[in-house]
């Protein structure tokens, strides 16, 4: 059974990546934080008695399911939002969202050194490209390469076959490479 200390260490290690994973999926800070909070609580409440080594795969599965639940819940809400936007004919929210997404989390801060700026722009380009990936491709890519799960663990977390994971990862990588090349970024 994971001790509170082990659970604390695990969550501290994974929380930032979890937040960004959720953010890539929902493009909204508050919603991303809510998703991570839900996932953390579900893990602690329902799987707090599991051994520490089982926590990463369990948490990733919970996180992905919580993101899917968010999509389902917001589906109807988005429909109404789209309808109201169409009727209102006001500002283009999609464009505004794109601008928000391109802005760095603390872009309002004072100027930074050039290398930091270049790094920030590359990161923005990566995040932007990740955000535009199909959900399953992004999910597979982040689990496999960012969370460091192997193909079998990724397949388990996503509830699909290992072959599908490989396909999603390959397509995601190709799309990312093309997007970064197009924007003149090199890694």
């Amino acid at each position, binding site marked *: 059974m994971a001790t509170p200390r082990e659970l604390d260490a695990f969550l501290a290690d994974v929380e930032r990546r979890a937040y960004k994973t959720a953010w890539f999926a929902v493009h909204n800070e508050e919603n991303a934080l809510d998703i*991570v909070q839900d996932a953390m609580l579900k893990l602690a409440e329902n799987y707090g008695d599991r051994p520490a080594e089982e926590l990463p795969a369990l948490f990733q599965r919970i996180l992905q399911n919580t993101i899917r639940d968010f999509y389902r819940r917001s589906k109807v809400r988005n429909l109404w939002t789209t309808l109201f936007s169409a009727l209102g004919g006001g500002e283009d929210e999609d464009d505004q969202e794109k601008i928000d997404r391109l802005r760095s989390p603390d872009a309002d801060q004072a100027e930074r050194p050039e290398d930091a700026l270049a790094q920030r722009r590359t990161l923005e380009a990566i995040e932007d490209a*990740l955000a535009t990936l199909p959900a399953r491709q992004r999910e597979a890519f982040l689990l496999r390469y960012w969370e460091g799960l192997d193909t079998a663990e990724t397949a388990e977390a996503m509830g699909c076959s290992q072959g599908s994971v490989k396909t999603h990862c390959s397509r995601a990588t190709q799309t990312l490479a093309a997007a970064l090349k197009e924007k003149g970024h090199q890694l």
Partner: protein
Amino acid sequence: MTHPSQQHDRTQDDLLAKAVARALDQGNEILPSRVTARLAQMREQALSHQKQWQSALQLAGQSTHRAVGSLFGDSFGSATDWRRWAASAGILLLTGAFMFWQAQTQIEDLASEDSALLSEALPPNALIDKGFQTWLSTGTPTVTD
């Protein structure tokens, strides 16, 4: 067999993926403080829920204890209860011993009957012979010299 160019593509993909992961890791270092503060707060909350889960186990244990207590009296767990438990166990033990003694006596009775039968000069089959039973009931002839 994998073609060398495919292998090369895979290596390139792998390198790119790792570079992206590294860049994302660096990006994690510059999250706004409000986000990191909220994440820390959420972690604390999750941990307290794990503690609550553990407490729930303890509570469940206590409720079971109380439920058992209600069966045997409200002061379950006290010295009086232990005496009550000991008395109940003693009664159970005595009842068991009595039943065992009865069973043993029955076995011994049957054994003594068997041995009496076997030690008789009369063969045991004679006792289940109807003719012999009739002969016994009509009257035993007097033994004369």
